[in-house]
């Protein structure tokens, strides 16, 4: 159809107006407004952590919780959004005023966010939360600064342990009900599993993207040592010692003398999960949530995996998750956020309801992770433990050695300037795992100098 000639300029003009209007809109869209809706007595808060559509079960449970909360607290309007902590976008969202009022963090984040002033101080608002007395003090300490002021709330706590493949243990003639308790036993078990051939790997260790440094820290804690000594006036490196050399010696011997760590190195977490999920890996260091991830992602079987405490048993690295608050949040929004967090995560009255919801959705119950996270002490811990065992739909006996040891085993949080320290220690792990002639003393000495230099620098 031919268009009348006169319509072209009009169309052009309309197009130009649209483009110009769109441009103005785009420009103005950059500046969002923070309306807490407090004018009518209602408080509006945005909270992230809503699972994506791909995780339909988790999303449905989350949405049901939010609906129930809003019904119980009509004065709070909760806007739930997708997403967890993403270091790649965090600063941009904070700078653009797009960061949620209550945002999800891993235990690796709070120290840095507090040091940089990127989270609100909630000490005053949390002062009357009696339930915090029953939360593990070490988990709460993750959210405190040097002066004891509080910046967030832990909602789940994981400590690292030894995740092992029970099926491969049996195949290698090892007793899956008696997992290794010392590093020497880990070495023997790894050797036996690698001896099965067919590219089986006895023990995998990470060494890329700072994850090597992270796991070196876990090894040091398990040996009773630490990575950074924070006791003095300024923190200093604390790994250039017998414990540090022992860590490297074990790794070196498993890698080169026994050949039980596979040939491909520079591994990251996903690599170890892939190897374990495909049934080719015997053991790696991980937190309990890895068990359900392996089952979900690789259609595995809970019966095939076991969890033991950190070998050596002298300590373990604490990990976990929680929520912090936008520095721009109003005191009312912080109060409302704390009300939500207490109702949803720190609420012994809802233990059974959370477990039932997981059972109804065929989500795992019985692991030391949500809906029964290991964040409690005293009577409440016992109450939750009883419910966990009573309602379990996974073989809890496979994880019992880990759970039994968890309460007694000293947990340590990450060192200060963790990611920078890990980056230095990554090279130590890489050297031991890729260079048979690695010089332990030289590696630890150079890493010590580098870590001390970075710790002396203002953050």
């Amino acid at each position, binding site marked *: 159809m031919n268009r009348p000639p006169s319509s072209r300029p009009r169309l052009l*003009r309309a197009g130009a107006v649209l483009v*110009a209007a769109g441009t103005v809109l*785009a420009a103005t869209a950059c500046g969002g407004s923070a309306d807490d809706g407090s004018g009518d007595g209602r408080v509006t808060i945005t909270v992230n952590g809503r699972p994506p559509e791909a995780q339909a079960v988790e999303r449905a449970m989350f949405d049901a919780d939010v609906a129930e909360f809003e019904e119980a607290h009509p004065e709070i309007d909760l806007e739930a959004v997708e997403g967890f902590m993403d*270091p790649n976008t965090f600063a941009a969202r*904070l700078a653009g005023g797009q960061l949620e009022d209550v945002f999800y963090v891993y235990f690796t984040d709070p120290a840095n966010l507090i040091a940089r*002033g*990127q989270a609100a101080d909630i000490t005053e608002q949390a002062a009357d939360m009696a339930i915090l007395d029953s939360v593990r003090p070490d988990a709460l300490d993750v959210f405190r600064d040097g002066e004891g002021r509080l910046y967030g709330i832990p909602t789940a706590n994981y400590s690292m342990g030894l995740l092992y493949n029970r099926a491969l243990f049996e195949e290698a003639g090892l007793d899956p009900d008696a997992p290794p308790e010392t590093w020497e036993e880990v070495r023997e078990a790894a050797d036996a599993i690698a001896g099965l051939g067919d590219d089986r790997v006895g023990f995998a260790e990470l060494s890329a993207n700072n994850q090597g440094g992270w796991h070196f820290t876990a090894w040091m804690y398990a040996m009773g040592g630490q990575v950074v000594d924070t006791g003095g006036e300024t923190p200093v490196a604390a790994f250039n010692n017998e414990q540090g050399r022992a860590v490297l010696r074990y790794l070196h011997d498993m890698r080169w003398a026994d050949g039980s760590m596979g040939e491909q190195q520079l591994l990251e977490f996903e690599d170890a999960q892939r190897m374990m999920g495909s049934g080719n890996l015997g053991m790696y260091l991980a937190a309990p949530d890895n068990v359900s991830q392996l089952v979900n992602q690789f259609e595995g079987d809970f019966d095939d995996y076991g969890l033991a405490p950190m070998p050596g048993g002298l300590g373990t690295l604490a990990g976990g998750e929680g929520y912090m608050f936008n520095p721009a949040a109003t005191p009312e929004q912080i109060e409302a956020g704390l009300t939500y967090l207490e109702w949803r995560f720190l609420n012994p009255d809802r233990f059974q309801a959370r477990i039932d919801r997981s059972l109804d959705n065929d989500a795992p119950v019985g692991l030391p992770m949500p809906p029964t996270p290991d964040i409690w002490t005293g009577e409440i811990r016992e109450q939750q433990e009883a419910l966990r065992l009573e309602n379990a739909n996974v073989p809890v006996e496979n994880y019992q050695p880990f759970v039994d040891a968890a309460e007694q085993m000293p947990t340590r949080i990450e060192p200060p300037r963790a990611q920078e320290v890990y980056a230095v220690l*990554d*090279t130590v792990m890489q050297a031991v795992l*890729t260079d048979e002639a690695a010089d332990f003393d030289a590696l630890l000495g150079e890493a010590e100098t580098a870590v001390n230099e970075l710790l002396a620098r203002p953050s």
Partner: protein
Amino acid sequence: MTNATRRRGRAAAASDAPATGAFRRRGRPDPAARPAGAAPSRRVRPAENAIAYAFLAAALVCFAVFSWFPIVRGVLLSFQRENFVAPPTWVGLDNFQRVIGDPLFVTAWANTGYFTILALIFGFAVPFAVAVLLNEIRHARGYFRLLVYLPVMLPPIVTALLWRWFYDPGPGLFNETLRALNLPTLEWLNSGDTAMFSLVLVSTWGNMGTATLIYLAALQNIPGELYEAAELDGAGVWQRIRHVTVPQTRFVLLALLLLQIVATMQVFTEPYIMTAGGPENATVTVLLLLYRYAFVYSDFGAASALSLMLFVALGAFSALYLRITRSTG
């Protein structure tokens, strides 16, 4: 007369030429085309200009918001300490001192230079050789061109993960092949000696398709008579390539050389996905270090300072390149 004055002379002559019809059609007044004092033949309607300005404004705003503002902000950020909560504080050259004082600073630049040189040797020469070969092929040309271009269509992450498996020193494709041929195996990404070379192979394989097609297009523009004349003069294959092919594709070769250097100096995907900078920092590049400053350590000041250094280095190189290419005509 020098080249430069000749060019200026031509430009001046062009500006003295009478206005073309196209120029008049846009409604601009053309003093030479009408008697003094006479009214212009057609007045410019304000609405017509408004439309032009509206379209121009959209482009300007887009460039300003998404290109110029971030560049200016990045430069400012390199002299500031910023937590995106409180107003930024000026710290002078502290960020630059922090970056230069980092033990990985020299390593990252040296690694980047090494990657660039290796990538030029392979990524520049190999596509040209392949293009010459493709140009000579008489049968199934389309099939071979598609074959060469296919890797470009793979997402870089897929390419990197695929090659990670090739490089696995245990059951990986390369070492399995070497074992089958009774040849010594290599540690590939596991060794500082071979890691960077391994990354260059991946990068070349993944990116050579585009360069090959551009070379091929340039080769096909060379008049066949030149080759015929060369052949009549008794020139062999190498002499034809040297005295006909290379001079005739010189401009494309030089343009791609610049693009190649600018691109390879910013190498990130391969080391990020395949080695994370290891083993023992053997593949830490400038951009990988920059990424760590920004997104691992949240030190945007240091990241901006390093990116400014890279910007200046690439800018200086580009200026030098343009100067050399201009002076050689």
